[in-house]
């Protein structure tokens, strides 16, 4: 079974600084997808970034980027120029390729605090 591990229950960063959230996963599949979801106090889950395992290039979305290390099964999220609106729970998630029918496996989450 696939597992996703987030070892940082809580992180704190000063506004405008850079923070990195860690995620490791375990799978025997060779083709899969990894995600970072953000859940602000409104509770709405928002997709931040997606990485396809067969792509070596790290995904980037504006201030958000990932460091995907397939051999190490590591998938960290870097947030640059942190803003107050980035404060939220962040979840790392995994799904194997094949249509999404299995759903996503989530880590336990990291609570990100932005200090003004």
């Amino acid at each position: 079974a696939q597992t996703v591990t987030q070892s940082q229950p809580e992180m704190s960063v000063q506004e405008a600084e850079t923070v990195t959230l860690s995620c490791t996963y375990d799978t025997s599949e060779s083709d899969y997808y990894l995600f970072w979801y953000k859940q602000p106090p409104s509770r709405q889950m928002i997709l931040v970034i997606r990485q396809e395992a067969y792509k070596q290039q790290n995904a980037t979305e504006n201030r958000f980027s990932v460091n995907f290390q397939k051999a190490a099964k590591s998938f960290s999220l870097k947030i640059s120029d942190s803003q107050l609106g980035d404060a939220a729970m962040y979840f790392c998630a995994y799904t194997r390729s094949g249509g999404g029918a299995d759903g996503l496996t989530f880590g336990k989450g990291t609570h990100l605090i932005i200090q003004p």
Partner: protein
Amino acid sequence: DVKVTQSSRYLVKRTGEKVFLECVQDMDHENMFWYRQDPGLGLRLIYFSYDVKMKEKGDIPEGYSVSREKKERFSLILESASTNQTSMYLCASIGWGNTEAFFGQGTRLTVV
């Protein structure tokens, strides 16, 4: 925009009651999911469905059942609610051939 709508944002029920949590999506997605979210435990999959009338157990199905009579609607049923089912419940859908999950806003259920 894809929309996943959960019928209630907050719900308070008594122990032993039968509880229905409803989820409707408007994007003709084949796959629908119910997750439970608890602090420190993340999101755990309760049940999922890949087609009408089809259902599969997730990681924590005990005490729950589901119903999918129409493609757009996926219901989670607590046959006899217990206090340990007090939690946040999230519904999600994924279209066939896709991987991105779209979520409802969650139902915070309190069983007293």
